[in-house]
């Protein structure tokens, strides 16, 4: 049992409360910050409808209540309406996380009927030129606008998501105004997190400290204005942790609340954990319960017995769990290390170097590596 290093001295974890069902890696867009794995094009064997039904049922029995259908673009799955209906029947609160491409008014209504609770539409910018340049698609923006309106009219709560980076961070005012006009309830202004394609493209995506400070001032001014007007629209600004001195409490702790199931059935403690040199179990071979409680992969970083210094003797380890394992791996080559975002990490200089690079970066958008099957195959070979 102690092979996992943690199951002996740690109490049994609580159940997974959130399930992220990545239905597919297929997507018509090519965002250069996509969090999908670089070699996504190698995944061809997607779980079938019945297998997803079983995953939904087992996770729900354990206690999962929030469910996200994402991808890739979940709309490319023809069985999406059936999956939504089953999720509703089981009692999930069901979120559809979509680029809006492939959505139609008929589908918006059909999903509502099936019991979908919420549709989150993601945008790349506040204007068509920049939006479509980032998305790598010519008519994405128009489509997204029309669908955001349809989602609102169908009575769903509206969450709009903008992924923020150095090429659109100057648009904060326009983005927020657009969201108000569309009647959004929640607006996520999510600065790229540097995993997957975004890590590959970090230099070309990461905003400078000045850009970030200007954007924060603007967001705060809008928050005050909205509060004074009694508006219920909530602005959630996720800043890049590369500008912090302490890491985020990633996923609220490894294997503590979140369960991701990838398109091929691989179960992960977070959607980016696939990059780690750990063998993760598949829902094709094991029940969700045995995956969650018993698999070495999910027990690998539970508790704190695995921690090396400086985390081991740090009095903040209960607060941030040593940060993000994927970030430690990407930046230091060893996933056990403290997240280098931390000022106490001996590798913190790598984060400082990225900040300096962001101050001087000049590469235009067109030079980024776009997320598409051709580029993905290059990574798969390497």
């Amino acid at each position, binding site marked *: 049992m102690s092979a996992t290093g943690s199951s002996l001295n740690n109490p049994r974890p609580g159940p997974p409360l959130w399930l992220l069902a990545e239905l597919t890696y297929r997507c018509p867009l090519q965002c250069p910050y996509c969090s999908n794995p670089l070699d996504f094009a190698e995944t061809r064997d997607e779980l079938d409808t019945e297998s997803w039904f079983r995953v939904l049922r087992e996770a729900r029995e354990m206690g999962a209540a929030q469910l996200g259908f994402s991808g890739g673009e979940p709309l490319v799955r023809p069985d999406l309406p059936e999956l939504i209906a089953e999720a509703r029947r089981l009692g999930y609160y069901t979120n559809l996380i979509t680029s809006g491409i492939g959505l139609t008014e008929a589908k918006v209504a059909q999903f509502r009927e099936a019991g979908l609770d919420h549709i989150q539409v993601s945008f790349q910018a506040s204007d068509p030129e920049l939006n479509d340049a980032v998305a790598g698609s010519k008519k994405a923006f128009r489509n997204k606008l029309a669908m955001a309106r349809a989602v609102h009219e169908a009575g769903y709560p509206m969450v709009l998501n903008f992924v923020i980076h150095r090429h659109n961070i100057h648009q904060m005012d326009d983005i927020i105004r657009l969201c108000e006009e569309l009647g959004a*309830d*929640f607006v996520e202004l999510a600065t790229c997190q540097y995993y997957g394609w975004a890590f590959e493209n970090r230099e070309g995506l990461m905003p400078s400290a000045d850009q970030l400070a200007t954007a924060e001032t603007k967001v705060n001014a809008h928050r005050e204005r909205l509060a004074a007007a009694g508006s219920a629209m909530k602005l959630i600004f996720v800043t890049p942790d590369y500008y912090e001195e302490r890491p985020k409490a990633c996923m609220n702790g490894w294997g503590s609340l979140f369960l991701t199931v990838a398109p091929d059935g691989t179960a992960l403690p977070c959607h980016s954990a696939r990059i780690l040199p750990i063998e993760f179990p598949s829902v094709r071979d094991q029940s969700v319960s045995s995956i969650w409680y018993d698999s070495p992969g999910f027990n690998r970083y539970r508790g704190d017995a695995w921690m090396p210094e400086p985390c081991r003797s740090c009095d903040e380890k209960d607060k941030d769990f040593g940060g993000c394992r994927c970030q430690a791996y990407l930046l230091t080559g060893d996933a056990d290390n403290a997240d280098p975002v931390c000022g106490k990490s001996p590798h913190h200089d790598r984060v400082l170097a990225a900040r300096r690079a962001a101050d001087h970066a000049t590469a235009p958008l067109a030079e980024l590596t776009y997320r598409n099957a051709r580029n993905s195959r290059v990574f798969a070979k390497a």
Partner: protein
Amino acid sequence: MNTQVPRLRPGFRFQWEPAQQAHVLLYPEGMVKLNTSAGAILEAIDGQRSVAEIIAALEARFPDAGPLANDICDFLEDARERHWIILE
């Protein structure tokens, strides 16, 4: 507030979760675990009953708890500020 009728904000769902042994409020990408009294108050909200009727119903349900009007109104005010409910 007494004559106003509270209802859940669209997109918010209230339900009992056996695994957590608690009522929860679910909303886009979020979940709040409610304590017993918050759960009892939200359970009494049906979009029809006024605040006064909810107070009367809960006082009848928990006769040993004494007068509940202040606690209920405080909670509803707080829930409205958090935009969980709409009071009209």
